């Protein structure tokens, strides 16, 4: 069996440009072998090399007193005190999930879990951010069912709770959905493992599942090329996940990293995108070493797998280890105990080259640097789309709703605001016993094992805002996350991000990207939350039309005392309802304008990061002092939706109504449904109001008592009078209706 001859045409088929092919010939001083061409094509793909994004990502704030590991490793790590660290990251699995929603989403979860336990951390929480097309689109219900089932399948089987996330519907994702998966794990802060290949002479071990032909060129083709009708032919590249094997791999890796075994381990990396190739080159690159691989020793699932396929296979549930010379058998023994393959497939060298032989024949011999740090980095042209004049929204032209109660009910039942219980009831949110607040409140809260502390997590994006203004949209998303954490009582401590965009070769897409990165920078600096990990997903585009700019962030917060956590729903009659922050007449980009008037337009609500920070301080102080019976940030749907959610989102059936009186000279629809930032609705016992007012005054945050928790109706002035049960029914039954279910 001989590999095909390599020509410029073969290079083009691999997605390499004529220039890049010439560069490869210069680097090697000869024509690459077919295997080498495969290695270059995946390592230089957008997915592995970040060639369009690297220059921009470098500007993000990535340091801080808590940062133990910033970007560049499998995941980021933050010190949370008492010798404990949290490790977390968010990653996209968009294209695979569009092609095969169940397995695509499942393997997305599997991949992000491996990124976390590769570092030595035990995963304790999964979250996700999902963007689907219009509910009316023929394929949407199929995709929603498949993705949700796939996430639930993998997480439930491996025994990691899925504790939160977000689901958005927008026509912009009709042909390119987004599936972003987040995992957080915990580890002793002095026992974080890294992906190093130190020490020439040390052995390279392959552990986990056997290698098949899964996902060959998944990274370079699926994740870096637009979709078109030919996507059909890309179907065989979808991988199938096996969560039970991953559970074995998780336990085996953590045992290897325990004090009893860890002296044997030098470095470890997940074989994710571009499998064996990227894991071996990246490990060697970090250590300034080289790696020799003997592909004849790779454990195979099928009888015939070519060396090219072995190098590029994305078979799931595999890891690459570097262990000390002499430790091989001890480590192999440990993995075999867990029913996993473990083979010595190579050696660390000082050659600074990746060399691979197959049946005695040298098939790959490439210097490491051009594959990693020296890979092409582009500063692509960026320009705002010419026709993008901000479409104005003239309030005077918008008729007010005839019936505000009906308008509120419509919003509660709208695709982007209705209850997500249909989704999260398919997830095991409690496995492991550490979940304090499950999906359905502002942020998920999980206990930090072995401590009194808890971690709050929120995953957010503001795609509609970003479509109007990617800078403001990104800043708004970060602020929303920070408010969600603070409303739960937590201090925001760090951020991971997944930047989903269209084709970076288009200047307008690159402009959106730059704007979003700038927004992420500014907001993270303001909140003091370093960006410690992340992922960029470009080429989210089908037949020439890009998705709206869709940066997603995962923010992590710390509660020093888990018992101080706060949930968003009202707790008891007689409590005072307090609005923190100021209402403005801002309806631009709102869910209300989109739902009631079918327009995505207007000037976005003004956002002042200083105001946000002060609001967060008040919320956190209130939680710490035990003043807050409930706290909920005001975001999509505005003040009226926030109040309705306080009435109906309780985990128990004990729901509460409220009597609200708002004194503001604003247009009633802007007052009720506008999405001005810097606001939160909290409830407190009357005797705590004085102290709460002191806290707010000191932080210069406007505070007003706007009503009382009372009865079983939500009454807002003369505008709204709705039964809590009626609101709950409309809100909770809408999601199944979107999918055409009863």
């Amino acid at each position, binding site marked *: 069996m001989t590999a095909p001859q390599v020509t410029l045409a073969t290079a083009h088929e691999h997605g390499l440009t004529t220039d890049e092919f010439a560069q490869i010939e210069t680097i090697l001083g000869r024509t690459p072998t077919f295997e080498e061409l495969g290695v270059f094509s995946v390592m230089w793909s957008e997915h592995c090399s970040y060639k369009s994004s690297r220059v921009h990502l470098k500007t993000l704030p990535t340091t801080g007193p808590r940062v133990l590991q910033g970007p560049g490793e499998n995941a980021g790590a933050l010190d949370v005190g008492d010798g404990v660290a949290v490790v977390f990251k968010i990653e996209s699995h968009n294209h695979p999930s569009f*092609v*095969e929603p169940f*397995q695509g989403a499942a393997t997305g979860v599997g991949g992000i879990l491996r990124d976390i336990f590769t570092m030595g951390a035990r995963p304790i929480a999964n979250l996700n951010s999902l963007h689907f097309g219009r509910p009316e689109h023929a394929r949407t219900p199929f995709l929603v069912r498949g993705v949700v089932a796939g996430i639930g399948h993998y997480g439930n089987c491996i025994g990691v709770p899925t504790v939160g996330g977000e689901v958005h519907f927008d026509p912009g994702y009709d042909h390119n959905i987004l599936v972003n998966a987040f995992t957080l794990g915990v580890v002793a802060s002095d026992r974080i493992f890294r992906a190093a290949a130190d020490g020439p002479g040390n052995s390279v071990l392959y552990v986990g*599942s056997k290698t*098949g*032909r*899964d996902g060959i060129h998944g990274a370079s083709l699926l994740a870096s090329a637009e979709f078109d009708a030919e996507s059909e032919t890309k*179907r*065989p590249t*979808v*991988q*199938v*996940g*096996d969560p*039970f*094997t991953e559970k074995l791999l998780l336990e085996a890796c953590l045992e290897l990293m325990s004090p009893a075994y860890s002296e044997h381990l030098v470095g470890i990396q997940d074989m994710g995108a571009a499998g064996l190739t990227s894991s071996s080159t990246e490990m060697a690159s970090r250590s300034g070493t080289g790696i020799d691989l003997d592909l004849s020793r790779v454990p195979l*699932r*099928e009888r015939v797998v070519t060396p090219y396929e072995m190098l590029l296979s994305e*078979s*799931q549930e595999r890891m690459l280890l570097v262990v000390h010379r002499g430790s091989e058998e001890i480590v192999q023994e440990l993995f075999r105990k867990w*029913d996993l393959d473990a083979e010595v497939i190579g050696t660390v060298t000082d050659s600074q080259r990746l060399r691979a032989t197959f049946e005695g024949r040298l098939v790959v011999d490439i210097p490491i640097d051009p594959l990693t740090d020296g890979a092409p980095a582009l500063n692509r042209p960026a320009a705002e789309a010419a026709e993008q004049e901000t479409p104005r929204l003239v309030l005077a032209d918008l008729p007010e709703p005839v019936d505000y109660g009906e308008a509120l009910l419509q919003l509660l039942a709208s695709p982007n605001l209705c209850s997500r219980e249909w989704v999260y009831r398919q997830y095991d949110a409690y496995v492991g016993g550490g979940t304090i607040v499950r999906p359905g409140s502002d942020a998920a809260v999980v206990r930090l094992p072995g401590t009194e502390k808890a971690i709050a997590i929120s995953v957010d994006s503001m795609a509609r805002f970003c479509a109007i203004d990617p800078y403001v949209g990104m800043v708004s998303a970060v602020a929303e996350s920070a408010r969600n954490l603070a409303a739960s009582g937590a201090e925001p401590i760090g951020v991971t991000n997944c930047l989903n965009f269209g084709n970076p070769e288009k200047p307008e897409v690159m402009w959106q990207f730059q704007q979003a990165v700038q927004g992420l920078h500014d907001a993270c600096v303001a909140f003091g939350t370093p960006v410690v990990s992340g992922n960029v997903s470009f080429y989210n585009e089908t037949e020439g039309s890009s998705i709206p700019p869709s940066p997603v962030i995962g923010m992590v917060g710390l509660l020093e005392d888990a018992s101080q956590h706060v949930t968003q729903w009202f707790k008891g009659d007689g409590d005072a309802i307090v609005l923190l922050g100021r209402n403005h007449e801002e309806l631009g980009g709102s869910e209300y304008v989109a739902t009631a008037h079918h327009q995505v337009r207007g000037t976005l609500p003004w956002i002042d990061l200083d105001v946000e920070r002060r609001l967060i301080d008040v919320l956190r102080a209130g939680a710490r002092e035990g003043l807050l019976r409930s706290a909920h940030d005001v975001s999509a749907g505005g003040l009226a939706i926030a109040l309705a959610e306080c009435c109906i989102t309780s985990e128990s059936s004990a729901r509460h109504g409220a009597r609200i009186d708002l004194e503001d000279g604003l247009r009633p629809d802007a007052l009720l449904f506008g999405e001005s930032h810097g606001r939160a609705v909290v409830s407190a016992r009357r005797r705590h109001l004085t102290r709460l007012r002191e806290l707010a005054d000191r932080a210069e945050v406007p505070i007003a008592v706007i009503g009382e928790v009372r009865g079983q109706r939500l009454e807002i002035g003369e505008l709204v009078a709705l039964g809590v049960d009626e609101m709950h029914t409309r809100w909770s039954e809408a999601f199944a209706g979107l999918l055409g279910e009863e």
Partner: protein
Amino acid sequence: MSAEGNGATGWLARVYVTPKQGVLDPQGKAVQQSLHALGYPEVLDLRLGKYVEVTLAEISRESAETRVREMCERLLANGVIEDFRFDLEASR
């Protein structure tokens, strides 16, 4: 009256759905490992699929074939990761 060749008749379709060649089959792998554990080391490979029986009303063979293939493509098999085949038996 003989079932075949006389135009419309009822049918029993036997549909076999199997994982595509090269696609990971976690179920098959688990069953194979269990067989090894039970003392059947000669099992080299095992692929696990599903078997579906579909009883059809009286229609022509041609139409039955077309319809069953369509059912497989649209629902019974996941074309991305599974292959299918079927046969038809005339039934009264």
